[in-house]
């Protein structure tokens, strides 16, 4: 047991917790004012829903004793046996309970990321059911495969330092399934002339949210070292420089493409950079991080533009930022990873190990397929039984009034 490590991971857990309200502001600012509370609520309530679920059985399913390399068993149900002694397979220097509460914050923010896809139209009751089921049958197994003791992707040597596959690809591709099954918002006809304008109502709120995400992400990535050591410092550094570079890249891309650098572009680029560096943070050096950030900022900008061409309404670009950014980061980890940064990690293609890229691609592919298929079926079932969307009248009135009977702003 190590007091510094324990203190560092507990603080990191608190930082990651703050990301969920940060995400609520990031998303909340981008919707129209009649949906600001509905959007914020779908994020904030996850602290409650997944928080309780995690203590009851989620942690046991994701990290409990292995069953067939696929899922944890229920030995740790109700946190039974998750005590103060370290669980050596996860960390030898912090209490098992500390690891559990740190992981709880990841389980909370991952499904919250998906909410951007169906913003401004999803029914709250169905949303809650979806989140409970998705956390149980998608998040917990995928977390087990990649991070759990005995998980099959972990055994294969896939590198995912802080959750590129488990968090971002997983949530990002579920967001695509959501947008496809649910259909576009009322009045959405692509963009441009004739279509209703879906203009962000409060970009300062979005930028504040992006700032809180950036801040909290140091806990997400550096904290994933699970110790107050050089590796944490390295992950912190890589996270920061990748994000700086991605912010510049997105703003630069839109400046060239549309003629003006925008604040929303800076905030979006920062989040794209944070996403892409997440799997790589503990395996790459600072210069590699800058390259990963540059790639993320420009590629995610193009991915967001492609949405219009492809014709689905992913309201707040969860696919373009989290899925595309996550895939990019996971693959680039297979190029830029080096044991010079983390001896317990691996070498990528550029450091003499081309096989790593293949393993990364496999982890990406498996996560994409599993999460998409299960999410798609789940949405279809819920659509047929409870209904995914509010009524057209409720959609016109806005979620704040129709789902929550309150308004975000009153004069």
């Amino acid at each position: 047991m190590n007091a510094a490590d324990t203190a560092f991971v507990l603080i990191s857990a608190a930082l990651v917790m703050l990301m969920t309200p940060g995400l609520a502001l990031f998303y909340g600012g981008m919707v129209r004012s009649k949906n600001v509370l509905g959007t914020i609520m779908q994020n904030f309530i996850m602290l409650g829903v997944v928080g309780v679920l995690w203590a009851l059985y989620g942690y046991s399913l994701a990290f409990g004793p292995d069953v067939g390399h696929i899922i944890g068993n229920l030995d740790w149900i109700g946190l039974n046996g998750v005590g103060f002694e370290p669980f050596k397979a996860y960390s030898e220097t912090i209490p098992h309970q500390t690891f559990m509460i740190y992981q709880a914050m990841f389980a909370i923010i991952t499904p919250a990321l998906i909410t951007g896809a169906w913003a401004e139209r999803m029914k709250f009751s169905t949303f809650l059911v979806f989140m409970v089921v998705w956390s149980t049958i998608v998040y917990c197994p995928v977390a087990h495969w990649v991070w759990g003791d005995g998980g099959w992707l972990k055994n294969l040597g896939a590198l995912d330092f802080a959750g590129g596959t488990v968090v971002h690809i997983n949530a990002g591709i579920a967001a695509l399934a959501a947008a496809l099954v649910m259909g576009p918002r009322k009045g959405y006809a692509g963009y441009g002339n004739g279509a209703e304008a879906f203009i962000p109502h409060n970009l300062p709120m979005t930028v504040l949210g992006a700032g809180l995400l950036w801040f909290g992400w140091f806990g997400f990535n550096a904290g994933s070292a699970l110790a107050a050591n050089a590796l944490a410092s390295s992950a912190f550094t890589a996270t920061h420089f990748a994000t700086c570079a991605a912010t510049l890249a997105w703003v630069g891309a839109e400046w060239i493409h549309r003629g003006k650098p925008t604040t929303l572009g800076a905030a979006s680029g920062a989040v794209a950079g944070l996403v892409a560096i997440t799997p790589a943070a503990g395996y790459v050096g600072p210069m590699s991080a800058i390259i990963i950030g540059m790639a993320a900022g420009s590629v995610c900008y193009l991915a967001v533009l492609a949405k219009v061409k492809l014709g689905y309404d992913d309201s707040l670009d969860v696919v373009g930022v989290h899925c595309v950014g996550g895939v990019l980061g996971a693959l680039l980890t297979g190029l830029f990873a080096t044991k010079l940064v983390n001896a317990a990690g691996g070498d990528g293609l550029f450091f003499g190990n081309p096989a790593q890229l293949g393993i990364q691609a496999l982890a990406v592919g498996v996560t994409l397929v599993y999460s998409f298929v299960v999410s798609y079926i789940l949405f279809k079932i819920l659509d047929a039984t409870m209904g995914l969307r509010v009524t057209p009248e409720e959609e016109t009135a806005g979620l704040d009034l129709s789902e929550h009977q309150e308004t975000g702003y009153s004069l």
Partner: protein
Amino acid sequence: MKKIEAIIQPFKLEPVKEALHGISIEGMTVSEVKGFGRQKGIREVYRGMEYQVDFLPKVKIEIVAADDKVQAVVDIIIAKARTGRIGDGKIFVYPIAEVIRIRTGETGDAAL
């Protein structure tokens, strides 16, 4: 008595108000409004997508003045709110039937 209603550029409110103080106008009402005139709308860009925004933010000033001050008020608004570019706004002048000060019950010019 006349009511002078002017729709002006938001950044011109301060100079107009200052100049109106100079001719001892006793009150005005200001609101933030949106609309379009010949200037039409503008283009805004969010995450690379262009949107046409039809209603532009303007400020509406409402002043009720005695007949002998109406021309001075109009002249000041024109002088201070004008940039010479499209989008400077308009002034409307209406007849007023009656004015009553709620506190005292005074009417007419005395209530202004």
